[in-house]
């Protein structure tokens, strides 16, 4: 267990990061020119890390499976990014952001990491504005903020519903500057197939050129995995179609511990599933909960009438509606954290109050907000006695200015106008808090292999608060990793170029080609998607929003059987030496079939409920999550031993010196 040294610096919480930066070794500029770093993934974490590392003088190679670094899935993040700027003067501070994040994560994250995150959050906003990121502004020309779930201040910076896009394009522009200087070589449409270790250190990767099918060797002094999360293990999720766990899982198989795989975020506001051919789910930003009120009918007969099309939601009067979040959680209301909101929606739908055909949808209603904003707008524009129609018109304009693109997106998918009728929403898999275990320096248990952004486990504990993924991705990439990695690389200044002719590269390449050949030569009974969908069903039904020991035990067996069937009978058309989307999917699903089993094992071993991990056996009388701090106040880091179910558990005990552990309450 000694290997799990989190390397948290000594000293008071607020001084740790500064002290650490002062004490770690640096690499001088001349030596940086002789050091190569590989970055996998070009989202917020990878893109920003690559740009900063190149700017510092390292030779960087980036890899992404998309045709351009700009398309990484960070681009789809909608609502915003948190920063403790206290521009609104509502009492925000680094400590409050730290506190909210630790509490929001249900006391399962590392204090020192989260404090550092809060500490650099303000720099992120400064940096992005300097890069020309067009955040939303007020009429006075200063930056605007909004509020997100689980907090009582307005600290979220945003760019309409396209905050992720604007931040990612900022990181992409910083990358472009370095590509133009020749300091980054960007390998697009390339996928990392394996990690190469030489003398126990990460020294490169095997990649596949997805256009030509060529298998390539790339060496480096360090490898940074910023390859995102693994939500697609559920098949249906809000992730992009290509999002996958391959890079992280290959590293895990080579010795990197995988932490808390069962911590998955089910996001409460997504567009419900419409049919069997659905390929992905679409998120409606949490920012909508600033203004939308969530409800289901109070009476079953209204539910039935609505499902049969005999009644419309707008036919129901106020006292016929159950605003269940406001009822159960008066203090936070519709802005409770995501895990709480998701479970509450499931509870109502399981009780038979779901409002669509499948009974798996609740309403998100903007009528009150339209009225409120309309009145305010009429008043401020000198219109003292507006008619109802005028109020509605003005209110809709305000809502459109705030959420226009989200409303349009909803209308295009569902074919209903959310300005006129409430949106229907249901929880969906969105983000994975679990990931590769890293120490304070973001290094995995493999020396020289780092993990940043969603790919690591570090900052969100068992539940992530809204608008903190963008914050973490950019904090890791711009401000943490480029410095901590220097401490490691300072020992490598005399190493020289790493050869790709070594037996280690040879062997890793052979493993990759053997694996591809196995996939191409299976019996060919079922398509890759067939297996992916079956895996998704097992995951959603047995490892989803609520879990119990019996289901998880079943899931372990079912996933194992499915994996064996997959390797024997999957059908991959085409050739391996060509652009081949089926082969790309097959490789990813193969890894999901292993990860899924570890996921179930982790969920089964954690005999408590915390954050996004809800075990039916462990709940309060009111149906809230029941933590067991005595026995489970640790990070579960799993070591690969040849079979996911035989993974060996290593525990990192979490110490809370600055925050008192409490039952999380949003009442």
């Amino acid at each position: 267990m000694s290997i799990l040294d989190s390397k948290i610096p000594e000293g008071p919480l607020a001084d740790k990061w500064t002290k650490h930066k002062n004490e770690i070794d640096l690499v001088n500029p001349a030596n940086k020119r002789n050091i190569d770093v590989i970055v996998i993934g070009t989202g917020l974490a990878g893109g920003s890390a690559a740009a900063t590392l190149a700017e510092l003088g390292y030779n960087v190679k980036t890899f992404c499976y998309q045709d351009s670094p700009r398309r990484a899935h960070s681009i789809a993040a909608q609502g915003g990014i948190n920063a403790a700027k206290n521009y609104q003067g509502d009492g925000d501070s680094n400590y409050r952001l730290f506190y909210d994040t630790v509490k929001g994560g249900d006391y399962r994250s590392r204090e020192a990491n989260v404090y550092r995150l809060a500490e650099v959050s303000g720099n992120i906003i400064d940096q992005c504005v300097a890069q020309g990121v067009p955040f939303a502004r007020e009429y006075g020309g200063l930056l605007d903020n909004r509020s997100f779930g689980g907090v009582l201040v307005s600290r979220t910076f945003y760019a309409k519903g396209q905050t992720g896009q604007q931040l990612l394009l900022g990181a992409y522009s910083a990358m472009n500057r370095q590509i133009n200087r020749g300091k980054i070589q960007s390998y697009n449409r390339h996928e990392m197939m394996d990690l190469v270790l030489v003398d126990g250190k990460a020294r490169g990767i095997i990649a596949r050129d997805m256009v030509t099918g060529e298998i390539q060797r790339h060496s480096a002094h360090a490898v940074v995995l910023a390859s995102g999360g693994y939500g697609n293990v559920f098949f249906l999720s809000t992730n992009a179609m290509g999002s996958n766990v391959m890079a992280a899982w290959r590293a895990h198989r080579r010795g990197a511990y995988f932490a808390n795989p069962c911590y998955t975020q089910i996001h409460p506001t997504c567009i419900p599933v419409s049919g069997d051919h659905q390929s992905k789910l679409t998120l409606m930003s949490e920012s909508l909960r600033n203004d939308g009120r969530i409800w289901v009918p109070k009476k079953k007969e209204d539910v039935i009438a609505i499902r049969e099309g005999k009644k419309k939601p707008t036919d129901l009067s106020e006292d016929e509606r159950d605003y269940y979040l406001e009822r159960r959680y008066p203090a936070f209301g519709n802005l409770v954290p995501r895990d709480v909101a998701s479970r509450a929606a499931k509870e109502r739908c399981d009780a038979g109050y779901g409002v669509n055909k499948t009974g798996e949808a609740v309403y998100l209603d903007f009528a009150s907000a339209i009225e409120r904003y309309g009145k305010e707008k009429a008043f401020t524009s000198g219109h003292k006695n507006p008619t109802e129609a005028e109020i509605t018109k003005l209110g809709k304009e305000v809502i459109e200015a705030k959420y226009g693109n989200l409303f349009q997106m909803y209308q295009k998918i569902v074919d209903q106008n959310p300005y006129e009728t409430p949106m229907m929403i249901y929880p969906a898999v969105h983000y994975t808090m679990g990931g590769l275990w890293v120490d304070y320096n973001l290094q995995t248990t493999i020396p020289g292999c780092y993990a940043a952004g969603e790919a690591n486990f570090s900052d969100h504990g068992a539940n992530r608060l809204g608008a903190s993924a963008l914050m973490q991705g950019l904090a890791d990439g711009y401000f943490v990793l480029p410095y901590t990695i220097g401490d490691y690389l300072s020992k490598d200044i005399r190493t020289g170029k790493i050869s790709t002719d070594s037996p280690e590269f040879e062997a890793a390449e052979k493993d990759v080609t053997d694996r591809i050949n196995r996939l191409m030569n299976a019996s060919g009974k079922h398509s890759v998607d067939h297996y992916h969908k079956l895996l998704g069903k097992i995951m959603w039904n047995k490892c989803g929003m609520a879990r119990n020991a019996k289901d998880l035990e079943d899931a372990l067996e079912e996933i194992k059987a499915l994996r064996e069937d997959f390797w024997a009978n999957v059908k991959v058309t085409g050739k391996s030496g060509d652009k081949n989307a089926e082969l790309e999917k097959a490789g990813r699903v193969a890894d999901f079939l292993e990860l899924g089993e570890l996921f179930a094992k982790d969920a089964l071993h954690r005999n408590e409920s915390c954050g996004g991990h809800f075990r039916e056996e462990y709940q309060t009388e009111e149906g809230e999550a029941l933590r067991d701090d005595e026995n489970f106040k640790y990070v579960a880091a799993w070591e690969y031993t040849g079979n996911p179910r035989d993974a060996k558990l290593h525990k990192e005990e979490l110490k809370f010196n600055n925050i008192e552990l409490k039952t999380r309450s949003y009442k």
Partner: protein
Amino acid sequence: MKLTLKIWRQDNAKTKGKMIDYPIDGIEGDMSFLEMLDVLNEELVAKGEEPVEFDHDCREGICGSCSLQINGEPHGPDRLITTCQLHMRSFKDGDTITIEPFRAKAFPVVKDLIVDRGSFDRIQQAGGYVSVNTSGNTVDANAIPVNKQNADDSFAAATCIGCGACVAACKNASAMLFTSAKVSQYALLPQGQIEATERVQAMVRQMDEEGFGNCSNTGACEIECPKGISLENIARMNREYMSATSKG
């Protein structure tokens, strides 16, 4: 519904391609266009044939991966959406749908419906950034107020997803709308002023080198743009360019 798909098939950049007919049945209005292609591909795989390759990723209209010239229009018949947001309810039972890749000299076909849009990346690399180090030690974000209208217009230009529909819509395969959107984003902000002269010249130079055509002001790009990027950006870029070149 029952449809006939006419799809461009091409093995790789070196081979010639051709249109092939695929009948398809059981398509529902709630399916997205790409889910309809998923159904076709599932059938092709079942028959042991190679599925149709097309670019796609987020499937919510923001990554800019998906493309497709559908019945002659980039991203199909609807306005202000990408192909992945197009739903089959926009088509009728019995329709024949033609599906081709985006056509432009600067977008060579990679395979089937996939094209190489690396030229767009290279235009951005030529100058689509503010040269500020990522140290975080810049001035406070609120130290420089920005007029709200300018900030909003800058944002509107910055919502370009780089899909290439503007180029595919243009009879000259011009990339003026794409390039001008980036130039405008920075031109409208104080942070972008310092390098404005060099930026517009470098980006236009690269655009020309990539083999994109000239702009003849037909406005097709604006109509087909899934994000509604305005032609005003082209006018703004022309002004920036004139002023930059007259400065020498």
